[in-house]
């Protein structure tokens, strides 16, 4: 694609991917927060209303979506730690291995959570 069509530099380094991943997961989390507030606000209509909403959200599809949410939060959180590290001046020259290591580390809590959620997804 010719450069004149780009609005962002077409960088292909790992740092650029990490940057995109961080922005996109950040946006997704913001959208989730809105939905979360929406769900919680059903309590205004009384306990019955709220319980109804909670029961609805117990459906396997929502548990599966929550797994997606967890993945997004883990990526954003672990990469956030990497950014803080760099901003404090540590590990900048090792940015690539640090990114890969942190993403690998993020898989561990995800696998544990998935194992716990599995029986609720396939009921």
């Amino acid at each position, binding site marked *: 694609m*010719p*450069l*004149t069509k*780009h*609005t*962002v*530099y*077409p*960088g*292909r*380094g*790992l*740092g*650029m991917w*990490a*940057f995109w991943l961080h922005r996109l997961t950040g946006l997704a989390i913001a959208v989730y927060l809105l939905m979360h507030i929406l769900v919680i606000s059903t309590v205004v209509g009384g306990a019955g209303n709220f319980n109804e909403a909670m029961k609805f959200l117990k459906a396997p599809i929502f548990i599966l979506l929550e797994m997606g949410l967890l993945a997004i939060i883990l990526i954003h959180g672990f990469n956030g730690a990497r*950014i803080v590290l*760099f*901003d*404090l*001046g540590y590990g*900048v*020259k090792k*940015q690539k291995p640090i990114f890969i290591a942190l993403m690998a580390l993020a898989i561990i809590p995800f696998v544990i959570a998935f194992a716990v959620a599995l029986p609720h997804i396939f009921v």
Partner: protein
Amino acid sequence: MSQTVTLRIYRRDPDLDAAPKYQNYQIELTPGLTVLMALYHVLENVDKTLAFRASCRSAVCGSCGMHINGKNMLACETQLAPLGNEVLIEPLPHLPVLKDLAVDMTRFWDKYEKVRPYLIALKAPPPSGKERLQSVEDRKKIDEFIDCILCACCHTSCSTAWWDKEYLGPAALAKMYRFVADSRDEGGAERLQIAAREDGVFRCHTIFNCTEECPKKIPITFGIQEIKKRVLWGKLAGRM
């Protein structure tokens, strides 16, 4: 059998063309042909109206920074053969185009000037009247950053510099770090004040495009983060 390569070159004269166009030139591949030599071949034999900047032909002057096949690099040190049968050559991105591959570097130099890119020495020169000496270890600290040839490959690949026209950008900040880390320089406090401003180091989001694109392999992001660290701890300790 001779092999030909198609150069697909960005063409625009802002006085005449509203939009850029891409023009193809066929060129015969000869051993050792660089992108710059290919451009000279076009200029001398095919199209005298083609505009680009170059001077040293040996990766020293920093004039020939271009966007080649989607990456900022120096045309003079880049071999044409490995780039494929069709090579896309465009000006450095996000600077105003003067003509074809030549961009207006005013904004780049303005920022360069802002970091005071020269030795600030407050103490009197040594009694010998000769140069200010530096230990081998101290010199090592600035080895990489001294290599900068100001080609603007980093600056024009920085996403923040694309979006924020005021941001000092990687080239100016790398130059600042070159002096901040220099044992002979005494402008440190003043330099850090410039770096701490709204348009300074804290605009860097550690995307590392500058470090990726630097033809001299300077760890530019490292330099920016080193300044950031100094500003941060300076502020926290109440020193600035």
